[in-house]
């Protein structure tokens, strides 16, 4: 009935699903899709950065061998201890700090450098565009893991070098998104108006283009967070990310692999943490993307 009464609305939005028949139904679901993963991310960030202090957890390193392999629920060790007698919960939260910090930094570097390169390339066109895009083509054709492995090997495993290695890989992807977004804006009246006013190129880029492509780039960065967390884990897993005694989800999974059959929980906890975090970022990114492409 409701559909038949409002043919115009249906024609405007052919992708409308059943919930549109109920006023506010889609809105509520859409909000939930935004707030649930968003809330989970806030919770994870707070837990990782404030949790160890608030809960008075033991240090993530330097545990006593006498306390190794304690089962979950032992006094003072909610999730038990690892082979070195370190508290697993503490290692999880500290490992999360490293993962989140690295992922956030890599994405910010990717957004700033890649976004600028891509916007410049799309706006300037011509030779500038060709040169920038061909260089990025090479970076994309280059197997990213090889590059990150080589950089990690060259500079030694550390948080800073992991960021450096991963940023290489995030820049070309962001640049492509930024470029295509700018190309779509190039024909818009406000761009012509800015050019007719004699606005300098840098001002057009930062004042007129940047705010318009920011939503798309930030959405992309949300999906990028998940990817970077996974790749950082892979590097740490191979022993080329965060150096050994310090915890990271990747090296916790790798350490746990050695005693997989005896103590599978050593692998399960960091895996769950990885899954939950990446899933939240992916859901948030997907939700933002459908918002932007839907309108």
């Amino acid at each position, binding site marked *: 009935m409701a559909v038949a009464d409002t043919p115009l609305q249906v024609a405007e939005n052919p992708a409308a699903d059943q919930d549109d028949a109920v006023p506010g139904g889609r809105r509520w679901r859409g909000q939930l899709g935004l707030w649930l993963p968003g809330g989970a991310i806030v919770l994870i960030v707070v837990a990782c950065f404030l949790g160890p202090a608030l809960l008075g957890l033991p240090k993530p390193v330097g545990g006593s061998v006498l306390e190794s392999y304690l089962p979950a629920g032992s006094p003072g060790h909610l999730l038990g201890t690892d082979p070195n007698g370190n508290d697993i919960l503490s290692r999880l939260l500290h490992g999360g700090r490293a993962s989140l910090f690295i992922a956030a930094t890599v994405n910010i570097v990717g957004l700033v450098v890649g976004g600028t390169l891509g916007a410049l390339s799309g706006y300037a066109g011509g030779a500038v565009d060709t040169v920038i895009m061909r260089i990025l083509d090479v970076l994309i054709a280059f*197997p990213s893991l090889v590059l990150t492995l080589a*950089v990690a090997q*060259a500079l030694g495993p550390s948080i800073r070098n992991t960021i450096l290695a991963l940023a290489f890989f995030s820049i070309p992807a962001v640049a492509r998104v930024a470029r295509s977004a700018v190309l779509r804006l190039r024909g818009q009246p406000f761009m012509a108006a800015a050019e007719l006013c004699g606005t300098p190129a840098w001002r057009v880029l930062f004042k007129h283009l940047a705010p318009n492509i920011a939503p798309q780039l930030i959405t992309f960065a949300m999906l990028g967070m998940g990817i970077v967390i996974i790749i950082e884990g892979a590097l740490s897993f191979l022993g080329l990310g965060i150096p050994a005694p310090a915890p990271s989800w990747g090296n916790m999974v790798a350490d746990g692999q050695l005693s997989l*059959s005896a103590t599978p929980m050593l692998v399960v906890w960091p895996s769950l943490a990885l*899954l939950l975090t*990446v899933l939240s970022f992916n859901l948030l990114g997907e939700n933002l993307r459908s918002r932007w492409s839907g309108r």
Partner: protein
Amino acid sequence: MTTAALPRVPGDRDPRVSPLRRVTGSPALRLVGKRLLMAIPIMLGVTILTFWVLSLIPGNAAQQLLGAEASPEDVAQLEEQLGLNESGVSRYLSWLGNALHGDLGNSLVSRQPVSEILADRLPVTGELVLLAFVVSLLLAIPVALLAAHKPNGLMDRISMMISTLGLSVANYVLALLLVLVFAVTLGWLPAIGYVPLSDGLWANLKTMILPSAAIGLPLFCFYTRFLRGDLVDQLQQEEYVTTARAKGVGSWQVLLRHAFRNSSFGLITVVGLNLGALIGGTVIIEQIFALPGVGQMLLQAINTRDFVVVQAAVVIFALVAVLANLVVDLMYAVLDPRIRYGSR
């Protein structure tokens, strides 16, 4: 009206155009030619970048081979023997010259020709990637069709939930999970190791099932989401779907014969683009399952500073990515008459 007024389409069945001209002037072939030409600077860039990145890594194969206690004279002598003391540019140029003749050099560590090492290792990685692709596509296509048949139906929701979850799992986590369930707990399949195909198909497959599943399952999720989204778009927005429905064509017929045929283009592109990224992802899976493939070779070579082998692996990976894109273009040209006759 004279014939000159008609737009001349290259490759058109014009009797005055010689058969040879018809082939060389075909837009599809020109497209492929253009792509091939574009691939050359990309491959050059990749190899130069590899040389440069590798030159940044401290320590070289000579030092690694002789150990930390070796005298500087011995190291210098071996460096000269291996040609490591020449400048980067001259080393690159001589490498390039040999590579163009099909000679990728000898491993600095084992002195074995790289082509021999690759002949041992490529089939392992090839089988892994092929199995992952076949399994993921065989699963993704029917699931996506079922999901798109009733958007927002039960099947759609379940498949979207599973694929969102699957896309958030790191492949190394998935690999360990599979080992935990199928090797440790159930004991059905071996946890690690590799049996060559020559020792029997089943024995070989038993060692390949878990690794290819670890690579294939996230791919399956990705393809399902992609194909389902594209199919729904086609069904809701395209006029030919409306036409077909108006003619009274059944919903499955519309989905299979009309929408899926068009959606398959997008799928082919995504599969092609994936191949490059995927082959890099085999590194960690081969490491976990102790498979003697190209990825494991690469990791070992980076650790021993065996740059000749690293360079070869990077060239192979980049070449696969570039060729995959080329094949995608070719398939487009074969499948889509608009491109075949250049009316785009």
